[in-house]
């Protein structure tokens, strides 16, 4: 999908003039200060900034885990403030997937069962949920067997299972909060590259990271400071198919 095509489609997630204050009165902390951000379908946005700059708060609000003090948050064109609790739960379960630093997998469930869990909570019949879970796990590149437990998986594999859980059931957006925090550089690169591939296939990605290495995979890097967006960097060209590896010439 090119930039023009993206611009013609309504944003998957949009924050408009969002203010978030924790606490009240003089002790209140203004975590977000008039932040506006629109994430297009298939766009990969990284949010970068020092601790307490508001990046995690932004992610929570974008996923409807918390509401703004003022301003609007829309997901798939729906203003979250206008939804009933049951509808909000549906948005959180069906449209948006979350990935965290600590994977948050259930140790007593296999990889495929972990991925099935939110689908079944969402009311999907077991058989169908299993099919969707297996499809998602295959997509993130986990090797068989899929009935291994989290303890039998490497850190990178666990994060892949967590990403499979986030995309299973065709979610429109993935919100990832420091997903590489517990991974080494090469494994982290592979996880971020997977997110970039999912974006290229149409899923919107919002990645919060303080690591410049991982932020630069994104189409757009948004810099935050003191609850505000201070700058952004847009990649010069839209993602193109990987070039022929130049290694052929060097092969014996």
């Amino acid at each position, binding site marked *: 999908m090119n930039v023009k095509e993206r611009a013609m489609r309504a944003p998957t997630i949009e924050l408009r003039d969002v203010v978030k204050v924790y606490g009240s009165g003089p002790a209140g902390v203004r975590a977000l200060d008039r932040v506006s951000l629109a994430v297009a379908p298939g766009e990969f946005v990284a949010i970068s900034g*020092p601790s307490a700059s508001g990046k995690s708060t932004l992610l929570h609000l974008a996923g409807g885990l918390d509401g703004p003090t003022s301003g609007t948050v829309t997901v798939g064109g729906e203003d979250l403030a206008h939804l009933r609790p049951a509808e909000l739960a549906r948005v959180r379960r069906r449209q948006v997937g979350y990935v965290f630093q600590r994977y948050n997998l259930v140790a007593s469930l296999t990889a495929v069962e972990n991925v099935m869990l939110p689908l079944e909570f969402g009311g999907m019949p077991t058989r169908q949920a299993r099919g969707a879970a297996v499809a998602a796990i295959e997509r993130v590149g986990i090797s068989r067997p899929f009935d291994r437990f989290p303890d039998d998986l490497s850190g990178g594999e666990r994060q892949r299972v967590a990403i499979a859980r986030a995309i299973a059931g065709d979610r429109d957006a993935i919100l990832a909060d420091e997903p590489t925090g517990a991974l080494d550089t*090469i494994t982290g690169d592979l996880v971020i590259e997977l997110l970039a591939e999912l974006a290229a296939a149409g899923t919107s990605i919002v990645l919060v990271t303080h690591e*410049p290495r991982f932020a*630069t995979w994104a189409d757009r890097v948004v*810099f935050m400071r003191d609850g505000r967006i201070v700058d952004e960097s847009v990649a010069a*060209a839209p993602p193109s198919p*990987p070039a022929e590896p*130049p290694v052929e010439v*060097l*092969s014996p």
Partner: protein
Amino acid sequence: MHTAYVSVRQGLLALLDQADMYGYQLRSEFEAYTGGAWPLNIGQVYTTLERLERDGLVAITRPAEGDGEDRPAAGGSGGREHKYYAITRAGRDALRDWFEATAGDEPPPRDELLAKVLLALAGGREHALAVVTRQRTALTAALQARRRGLRPTATSPGNGVTALAPTLVADALVSRAEADLRWLDVCEARLAQLSRPAGNGTTPSDDQGEP
């Protein structure tokens, strides 16, 4: 240091942008702002001032009326009246261009980036934050572009050690740019912690004792 000469030029302009100064003052202010990274001898200061004057970026001016703040210069210039220098309009333009200039495809020479951020402090906290933000955005954009041509898994692992070389070369460039980005992040965090503007043209007082 090779790049120091370039930075001396910009450094003197950045200081004169805050106040008119004479040679010895410029040297001590320059050393204070660059954290001792580039010791200067007074000869370099005067040579640079002469070239800046020749290029129309600074002009010799009279000492201010009733200026009682002359420090005893390190070289002991006796009772001789100091030759004060002032930045010209062309000098201000050149300085602004330098702060705004960002490297293109490649990470900038590290010393140049360091000098730019240190000297931006002379313009105060907000100016320094703006310079850090601009440099970081430019560096991020360069790295984003490079990422597009660098997909680790696109290189088949089965091609032997020679196949690894282009990847390692690319990794080296990316790692260097990352280090610069991380340093700019630290600069931002430290600057953000300064509650008051860093002053205008005066020596920052409490910047010792950082690890």
